[in-house]
């Protein structure tokens, strides 16, 4: 399967930048468990989960790093031993991973992989490649079974994805090889194309052969009788050393060979993607139905649970970094206000930090703090400093001379003056700075997902990759809500912290 190319590139890139330098540091510390990987689309995750079930049935301790950024990420992680097993496609192996080495044919691929210490299973069964789909009734009525049959109906209207329209191995090739005469061919996105099929405004569209929608819309996929589309057979890739470390697990995994037909894969994809059933359940049910394993009693994470998990992760990032920022920035702001020269330096540095692009800052953190939460927290923390420092500084400067003199006249030492007079007087300004920081904080923390810190950034990035607005919103909306909640929360804090005497109107 060629994963959608355009949108996910961003995330893949981010991963690619980050992964090689960091690796999965946690891996080493955990006891020898078997780590599985999967790409960030449904089918890959299902296959990965299926492999996990099988390994567990053989008694292995497992870990599934699902939804990783892209082929390059998984491949290099496999080479480095950060993951032991992941599902891949033969077409991707020859066209992408081993591209340029001119290998073709299963044997050549196997050999090229072996040179790198990687083994490949037999094919799992189905072939996930481009297909042309039509409504079952229409195809039946017109008697169309193969792509060649289309030639007999030159008036049919086609609606193709822009990518398929443009790609060398898409429509241009199809038209050339099959000598298709059709004139009414438009670029459409998939959603519109499905709708077009339904209302009859188009008659055929491009699909991947295991797309969930094939079942949902009851489509017939036309046979590629000239065999122009390359094959993308699913296989498992695994590290050579797994054979020695856990031969029984390998044996269990290889039960997937020849196990899944196209129709079965479509059904599973459909269940996961359209019915929203968790991939672990889908794969387990399949294995149970095939009587390969017993029901593993998977606990499903619903949308609520996921939201909760992301919320917890995001709150963790935000609360720690914001707390740290408040604890550091308020004193820095005080220092800046008390010592004019030093103040310029502090404000200058805080400003300079703010100009470091966020992605660069995250990348800079990795060598120091590894992957995951610590670097994310650090980066978010750094971005939160300036507004608090600056507003603390300004708030303290804005205290009227008379008040200052009163405090001095009492003979309060400067520490006590600060605590009892200056900070309460400046509290509104300081809180305004904290509110600004908190909001920036909530926003910046979404970047944490790029380096594995989770949070609302996770569904946003996954959503961007899958072009799934719903998923994007699953991150973006709670992030926005959290920004509002945080502001509201600090509005409440303001009621407590800002002395009533400063809020009174006559």
């Amino acid at each position, binding site marked *: 399967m060629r994963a959608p190319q355009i949108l996910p590139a961003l995330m893949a890139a981010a991963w690619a930048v980050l992964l090689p330098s960091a690796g999965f540091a946690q891996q080493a510390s955990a006891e020898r468990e078997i780590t599985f990987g999967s790409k960030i689309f449904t089918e890959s995750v299902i296959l990965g989960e299926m492999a996990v079930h099988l390994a567990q049935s053989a008694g292995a301790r497992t870990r599934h790093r699902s939804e990783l950024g892209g082929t390059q990420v998984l491949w290099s992680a496999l080479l480095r031993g950060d993951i032991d097993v992941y599902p891949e496609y033969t077409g991707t192996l020859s066209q992408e991973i081993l591209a340029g080495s001119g290998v073709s044919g299963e044997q050549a691929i196997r050999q090229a992989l072996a040179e790198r210490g990687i083994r490949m299973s037999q094919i799992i069964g189905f072939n996930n490649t481009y297909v042309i789909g039509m409504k079952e009734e229409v195809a039946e009525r017109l008697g169309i079974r193969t792509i060649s049959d289309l030639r007999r109906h030159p008036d049919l209207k086609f609606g193709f994805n822009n990518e398929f329209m443009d790609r060398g191995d898409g429509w241009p090739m199809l038209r050339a090889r099959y000598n298709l005469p059709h004139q009414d061919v438009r670029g459409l996105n998939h959603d519109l194309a499905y709708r077009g099929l339904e209302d009859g405004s188009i008659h055929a569209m491009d699909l991947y052969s295991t797309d969930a929608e094939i079942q949902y819309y009851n489509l017939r996929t036309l046979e590629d009788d000239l065999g122009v589309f390359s094959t993308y057979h699913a296989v498992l890739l695994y590290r050579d050393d797994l054979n020695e470390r856990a031969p029984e697990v390998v044996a269990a995994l290889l039960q997937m060979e020849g196990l899944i037909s196209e129709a079965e894969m479509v059904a599973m994809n459909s269940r996961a993607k359209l019915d929203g059933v968790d991939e672990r359940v889908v794969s387990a049910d399949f294995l149970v139905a095939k009587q390969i394993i017993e029901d593993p009693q998977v606990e499903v994470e619903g949308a609520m649970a996921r939201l909760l998990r992301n919320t917890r992760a995001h709150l963790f990032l935000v609360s720690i970094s914001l707390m740290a920022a408040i604890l550091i920035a308020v004193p820095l702001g005080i220092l800046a206000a008390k010592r004019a020269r030093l103040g310029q330096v502090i404000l200058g540095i805080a400003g300079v930090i703010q100009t470091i692009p966020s992605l660069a800052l995250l990348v800079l953190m990795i060598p120091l703090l590894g992957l995951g939460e610590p670097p994310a927290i650090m980066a978010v923390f750094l971005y939160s400093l300036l507004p608090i420092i600056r507003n603390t500084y300004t708030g303290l400067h804005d205290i009227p001379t008379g008040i200052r003199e009163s405090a001095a*006249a*009492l003979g309060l030492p400067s520490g006590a003056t600060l605590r009892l007079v200056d900070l309460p007087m400046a509290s509104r300004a300081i809180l305004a700075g904290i509110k600004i920081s908190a909001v920036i904080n909530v926003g910046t923390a979404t970047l944490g997902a790029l380096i594995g810190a989770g949070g609302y950034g996770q569904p946003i990035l996954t959503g961007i990759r899958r072009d799934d607005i719903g998923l994007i919103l699953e991150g973006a909306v709670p992030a926005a809500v959290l920004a509002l909640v945080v502001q509201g929360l600090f509005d409440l804090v303001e009621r407590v912290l800002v002395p*009533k005497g400063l809020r009174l109107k006559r």
Partner: protein
Amino acid sequence: MLELTGVSKTYDGTQVLQPIDLHVQRGRTTVLIGPSGCGKSTLIRVMMGLIWPNSGTVRFEGTEVTPANALLLRRRMGYVIQDGGLFPHLTARGNVSLMAGYLGWSPEKVETRLDELAALTQFPREGLDRYPVQLSGGQRQRVALMRALMLDPDVLLLDEPLGALDPMIRSELQADLRKIFQTLGKTVVMVTHDMGEAGFFGDTIVLLRDGQIVQQGTLKELVQSPATPFVRQFINAQRSPLESLRGDSA
């Protein structure tokens, strides 16, 4: 107690205080009078170490007041700022007890002292929990006075402490304060524009004009042997309370 030698102060090139020598005697009340803008408040600020003179020295019990020791010395002085200078973020109670709280007084001790002071100044109890913006002008002034008296300091620097009070409270408070000052032997420097008040309190009266001491002495000396015509003029300028009535009836 307080010894000023050659103290002068210049703001933006204008001489606000000419070099001044002044001895504030322990246990006595010194009243500063003089035209508006003559430098009375400035002189008090210098005594407190809140601003630093351009020349001259201030000695407190013989030790020179410096930025290093000003803080500690100030704690031994109570200061009523001319405009009250209350902290807007604290209630009347908070303002008065701020320093006591800092020094770790027990709540009971604070409460007792507050009661005393409220009674002394006839400050309404319910006003203690109001913030400065919620108080009347005279109430604010009394809060400022309570704040200065709270720690029962040896030295009191009072810059027009009773100016916004009605005659009744004012005269009762004058009587009470004088009793306190005398029995407890407080050293007091007071600024007032009310000659009655100056005469009532002042062991010594210092008349300032344009940053210079024109004359000092008891009220009697000032009245009976004024150093310049200005002194006489100044002392006699104030309208008597019921004067207009007399004029009316005359």
